């Protein structure tokens, strides 16, 4: 059993003992507290910044579903995030779809991409899997650079936010914030459900010992593909939403550094934990925001966090908290 699995396991074991009775009490309390904070936040902080945090929190949670619970390290999740961002921007701007349909279209695109790339990538394991996903993501990057509808370096600009269900005008950041909050929360709760479902149990079994799972009669490839597609789809949901928030879809969304960022958020927050990726997203997006004026220091600090996390802090913020509290988080 590898170390990544061990870290996740200790936590997952505890979770499962409690999840038989629905959501454990302290998880319910944390979700509630997060919701209260999220509802108050836009009254004091800049809503666009908060929406960025929300989108990345969802992205990191989706990524963590694959890494922390599926045991698969993808280094190319920018492909699903970015492709969905492009498609939803195109749908909203060129096809004139309403925002909810644009986001749905983008998410679907990510799902399709997840099926295609996932079925190829799961043929390899471990490091090879990481390299293959990275290479596929780079392929999407070059596609986005040259495809006629993505606008090359310009990206798709001036994406209209439109009216939700044709009714509610989303041009105000404040209104849009609550829509994004609803999407993010629904996405994260959905991930929570997946992790604690029988499907999630089988995933855990596969991650621990694949041959044993096979011998028990599970078609492990299908399970791995399923979790890959789910993760890609939810990453797509985050990307599609982001495109409407910033009204722009660009190459930044599909670049490999985006894939690196989501790994970093998950790692620093605590992989294999429920709340870790959210904490990771808050930390990294805030750091990016305040360090933006310092040029390449953002990159250097991110690199340093990577190194520190890998060498000394493999459980991440929430992982350490969970150990201190002796409760899974």
């Amino acid at each position: 059993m590898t170390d990544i699995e061990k870290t996740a396991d200790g936590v997952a074991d505890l979770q499962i003992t409690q999840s038989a009775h629905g959501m454990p009490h302290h998880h319910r309390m944390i979700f509630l507290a997060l919701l209260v904070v999220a509802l108050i936040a836009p009254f004091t902080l800049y809503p666009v910044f908060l929406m960025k945090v929300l989108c990345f929190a969802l992205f990191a949670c989706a990524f963590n579903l694959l890494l922390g619970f599926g045991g698969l390290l993808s280094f190319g999740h920018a492909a699903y995030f970015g492709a969905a961002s492009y498609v939803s921007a195109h749908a909203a701007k060129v096809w004139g779809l309403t925002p909810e349909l644009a986001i749905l279209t983008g998410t679907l695109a990510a799902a399709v991409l997840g099926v295609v790339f996932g079925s190829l990538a799961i043929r390899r394991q471990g490091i090879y899997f990481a390299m293959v996903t990275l290479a596929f993501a780079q392929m999407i990057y070059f596609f986005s650079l040259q495809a006629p509808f993505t606008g090359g370096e310009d990206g798709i600009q001036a994406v209209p936010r439109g009216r939700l269900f044709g009714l509610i005008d989303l041009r105000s950041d404040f209104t849009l914030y609550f829509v994004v909050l609803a999407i993010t929360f629904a996405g994260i709760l959905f991930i929570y459900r997946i992790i604690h479902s029988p499907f999630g149990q089988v995933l855990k079994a596969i991650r621990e010992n694949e041959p044993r799972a096979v011998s028990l009669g599970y078609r492990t490839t299908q399970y791995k593909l399923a979790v890959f597609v789910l993760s890609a789809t939810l990453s797509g949901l985050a990307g599609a939403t982001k495109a409407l928030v910033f009204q722009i879809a660009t190459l930044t969304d599909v670049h490999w550094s985006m894939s690196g960022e989501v790994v970093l958020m998950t790692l620093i927050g605590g992989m294999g934990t429920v709340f870790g990726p959210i904490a990771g997203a808050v930390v990294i997006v805030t750091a990016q925001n305040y360090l933006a004026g310092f040029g390449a220091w953002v990159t250097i600090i991110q690199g340093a966090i990577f190194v520190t996390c890998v060498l000394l802090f493999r459980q991440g913020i929430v992982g350490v908290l969970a150990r201190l509290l002796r409760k899974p988080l």
Partner: protein
Amino acid sequence: MRKTTTTAAIALLAGLAAGAATAEISVKIGVLNDRSGLYADLTGEGSVIATRMAIEDFGAAERGISVEVVSADHQNRPDVASTVTRQWIDVDGVDVIVDVPTSSAALAVNDIVRERQKIFLVSGAATSDLTGPACSPYTVHWTYDTWSLANGTGRAMVEVGGDTWFFLTADYAFGHALERDTSAVVEETGGQVLGVVRHPFPGQDFSSFLLQAQASGAKVIGLANAGGDTVNSIMQAAEFGIVQAGQSLAGLLVFITDVDALGLDDAQGLVLTEAFYWDLNDDTRAFSQRFAELGNGNMPTMIHAGVYASVLHYLKAVEAVGSADSDAVMAMMKEMETDDPLFGQGVIRTDGRKVHDMYLFRVKSPDESTGRWDYYELLNTIPAEVAFRPIEDGNCPLVQ
């Protein structure tokens, strides 16, 4: 008693006058450009210096206008430019955005300032769409644009016999616009465009694209790129012996800092179009000397000159209006004639285009040059009336 009243009245009046003088109009200027990338030399910190010089020369402090300058690096990325602009306007209360090279980034900023009703003084970006289909009531395009470059360099190349063209185009809004506007000039003057190849932005290795251009057999290889990309294309063309083999290179947008980076050995003979050269007259020489001393010794590019002149004109309009209200200031900017030491007198058209003379230069040979920065020989002055696209051809919705 009466005396006291009079004195009091005078004091009151004086107080009012003083109050008017000190009831400061405060203005916040955001200089947004490339501070670390391939356009950092031709925009970058130099544009911040030019902005400060304009504030100082205008005497903002003495005239009761307090000006704050903020700056940021958009890394030539439209998403970063749009995030910074939103935050500047929504959170930091920036009134006017200045410079913004890289057309894709400038177009992103243009959309936001139109929606948020803030003023945008473009100097760095080139695409003529900013005063065409994308024009905005709050945007002034000061220094140059792709149409004026095509009209200068493109026309000059065709006139000396370069009638078949192949474009090496930076694959983003600016490259596309420059290629489009130059193709139009080439075809209009009886030339022919044989082909186009688009390179990633920023590019590294241009050799395969240059070989495609060579294989086309065109007389002129038009470089529809800028800054470091142009410098690299010219150097790699030299490595593959393309100019010796008989094709000529047309640098459609070459700045004085690029010529400095290339060296005269590689750059000599290039024909280029600029709106400004440090060695034009006493005023430009004095400005450039000060600029060089404040900065790292480099002479200003036309973009720096444009930033200076546009900020100066903006501040004059703010003083005339007595507030920083975008609509009123913009109306005043378009109503007042512009007058500054670098571009002389000029006007801002309804579509936001600032018009002034443009110059066609030829880069000197090492023998002709007397030293560093003595690079250009003036071939031709293109008068303001014909230097820019006629207002009715631009399809700007504000004009109809």
